[in-house]
């Protein structure tokens, strides 16, 4: 084993074997799933107000399909009046407008939903279910009228029943304050983006700080001089960063597996008719509107492979870059208190990136999201928000190239500062002195 491998091994094992790590890694997913499920249950219970949805059905085919439920009332309105006249009444008379402009069995995209607020998932899934059912029937009827039901026709019927083209997906449109219409994301995409952004932010902060702590600890402990007499400081630095990073990855992967497992268990649990029909049904109101199968269908529409792959790539780049910075800080100071002053600007940048990410959820293609997903100090965090909505390839490549270039630069600078800093005790260095360290032989 080379010294670098030995250091990585030590850093990794020292952390992974800790009781606190094991506990946190195993317990957190349960907490996560708990937190995720409680609002889902609550959403089944609340929502007493009835929402009115205006249905503009230019074909006249679908109005009858949309039966009002406990929570939603569908009213058919005159399809010949201009759309704008209904939009005036949004949020006062109507919660939303369902605009069906053509025969959905021919043009599956001829339907859109307009609202001022983000439409609830259960409403969309209910509309989509009913329209899909109708389209399926339409197609089957069309087939029936085409001629006798020979074996070929039966095969066609089966194909129609299985076909995904029956699935009507309502594109949601949102009217913002300026009255401008923008196509809004589905909630799921936002949630997925938000979750990954938060994860990357949390891990960069937590594990970056862990690297810094480890450097300060080694310096305070005075073990560092023994170490650098055998290994090159840059190996010690890189070994530490990689070792701690692998700990982070281990935790992420275990969390991913556990949360995935728990979620599917929870989904099965909520989907099964656990509550006896009678009183309980009334209590939880539109329980049928929380359709886990539907959610899963939406979730499976997202390009998970790409997101997860890029998540790890951005995590590695972002973590290594910030960890290098944190390590340089740790090397420059003698004790934990002194780290505060140097950490401030970095914390500020990461927080900025985090908030930029949060705002980008609402506008994943706006200038803020665009520039922040290219700028290397914020790109790992902000890009995560944009990925579920689709990002052009060149932007991804440019963003990654910039990130890894920045990481190499930071690592180089950090190695220079680290090498000198770890052997300096006493006075806290000024920024000017740290810059001079970079020039030392």
């Amino acid at each position: 084993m080379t010294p670098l491998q030995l250091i990585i091994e030590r850093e990794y094992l020292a952390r992974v074997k800790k009781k606190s790590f094991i506990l946190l890694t195993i317990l957190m997913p349960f907490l996560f799933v708990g937190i995720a499920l409680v609002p889902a249950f609550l959403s089944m219970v609340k929502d007493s107000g009835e929402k009115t949805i205006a249905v503009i059905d230019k074909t006249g085919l679908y109005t009858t399909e949309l039966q009002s439920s406990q929570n939603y009332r569908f009213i058919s309105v005159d399809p010949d009046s201009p759309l704008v006249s209904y939009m005036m009444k949004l949020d006062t008379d109507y919660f939303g407008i369902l605009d069906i402009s053509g025969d959905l069995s021919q043009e599956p995209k001829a339907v859109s939903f307009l609202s001022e607020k983000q439409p609830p998932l259960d409403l969309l899934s209910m509309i989509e279910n009913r329209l899909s059912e109708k389209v399926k029937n339409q197609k089957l009827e069309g087939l029936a009228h085409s001629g006798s039901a020979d074996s070929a026709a039966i095969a066609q019927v089966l194909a129609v029943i299985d076909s995904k083209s029956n699935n009507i997906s309502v594109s949601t449109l949102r009217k913002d304050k300026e009255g401008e219409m923008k196509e809004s994301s589905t909630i799921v995409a936002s949630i997925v983006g938000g979750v990954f952004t938060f994860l990357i932010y949390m891990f960069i902060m937590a594990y970056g700080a862990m690297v810094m702590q480890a450097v300060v600890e080694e310096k305070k402990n005075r073990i560092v001089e023994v170490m650098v007499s055998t290994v090159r400081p840059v190996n010690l630095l890189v070994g530490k960063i990689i070792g701690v990073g692998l700990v982070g990855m281990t935790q992420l992967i275990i969390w991913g597996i556990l949360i995935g497992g728990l979620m599917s268990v929870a989904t099965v649990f909520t989907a099964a008719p656990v509550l006896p029909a009678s009183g309980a049904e009334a209590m939880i109101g539109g329980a049928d509107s929380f359709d886990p199968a539907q959610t899963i269908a939406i979730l499976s529409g997202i390009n998970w492979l790409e997101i997860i792959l890029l998540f790890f790539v951005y995590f590695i780049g972002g973590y290594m870059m910030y960890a290098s910075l944190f390590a340089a800080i740790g090397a420059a100071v003698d004790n934990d208190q002194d780290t505060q002053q140097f950490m401030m600007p970095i914390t500020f940048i990461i927080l900025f990136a985090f908030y930029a990410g949060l705002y980008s959820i609402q506008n994943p293609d706006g200038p803020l999201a665009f520039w922040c997903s290219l700028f290397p100090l914020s790109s790992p965090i902000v890009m995560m928000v944009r990925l579920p909505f689709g990002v052009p390839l060149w932007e991804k490549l440019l963003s990654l190239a910039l990130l890894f270039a920045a990481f190499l630069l930071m690592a180089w600078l950090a190695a220079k500062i680290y090498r000198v800093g770890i052997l300096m005790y006493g006075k806290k260095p000024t920024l000017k002195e740290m810059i001079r360290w970079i020039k030392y032989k």
Partner: protein
Amino acid sequence: MYYLQTKDIVKQYAAHRALDGVSIDVPKASVFGLLGPNGAGKTTLIRIITRITAPDSGCVILDGRTMDKNDVYKIGYLPEERGLYKKMKVGEHALFFARLRGMDRAQAQAEIDKWFQKFEMTDWYGKKVEELSKGMQQKVQFIATVIHNPDLLIFDEPFSGFDPVNSELLKTEILKLKAEGKTIILSTHNMESVESICDNITLINRSKAVLQGSVAEIRNSHKSGIFRLKLQADTFIPPADAPFVLLSSAPFGDGLDVRIRKNVDISPAELIRCVLQTTEILSFEEEMPSMNDIFIETVKTPLPV
């Protein structure tokens, strides 16, 4: 044959010149004392020898050739400021250091068992470092320094924190290493241990090597002609024209203990003759200057500009 030499090492830190043309010659299989007041540049020199930092100019020669980066495995360095990973187990820690210095696991394990037995600490093998006393930790550090059987050993203040028993144990081990043919550099402020184990020294003061040579030679050349005599007498009053000066006298048993400084132009034999004229002498010895005195005297002398 010198095992280690440094040639005109210069190291500048911003406005401060830490080393200014320092050359040392360390003979093979000897104990070499690196002395000097705090801040003189000893640690910087050691860091250059251990390749922790690079000199601005000058070079380090190991075993007859310029040192390269693989030579760090031939060095065992025990820094003055030393620590251990507190959460690691003692045995794992020693193993980690041994492997870091290029030993394979089995080989390292065998060496560790040997040293742990020698230092009577096999019971401590599975304990965490933070559970050890300071002296125990020092032992682990010492083992970590010598575990890979290096040819050059550098100990910076190795005795600090050790009780007299363990200090003695350490001294014995250092002399054993020397007998095995290892070269040892000892940086210390403990002048007594310099006298007892060092063969040669270099004294660094204000970034320069100001005094170099073998301990015996240096002590000889710093003799100041002071003699200690035990006399069979109640009082001792030297005659006015005596070729010596009486420094002190104190009663000792039924005799007198005196210190005198002879004039430079007479020999010790003449001094004895002179004293014998009036008093019986019970014992007579020349007072060798201690390394402590030499250290203080040298450091206090202003440098020639």
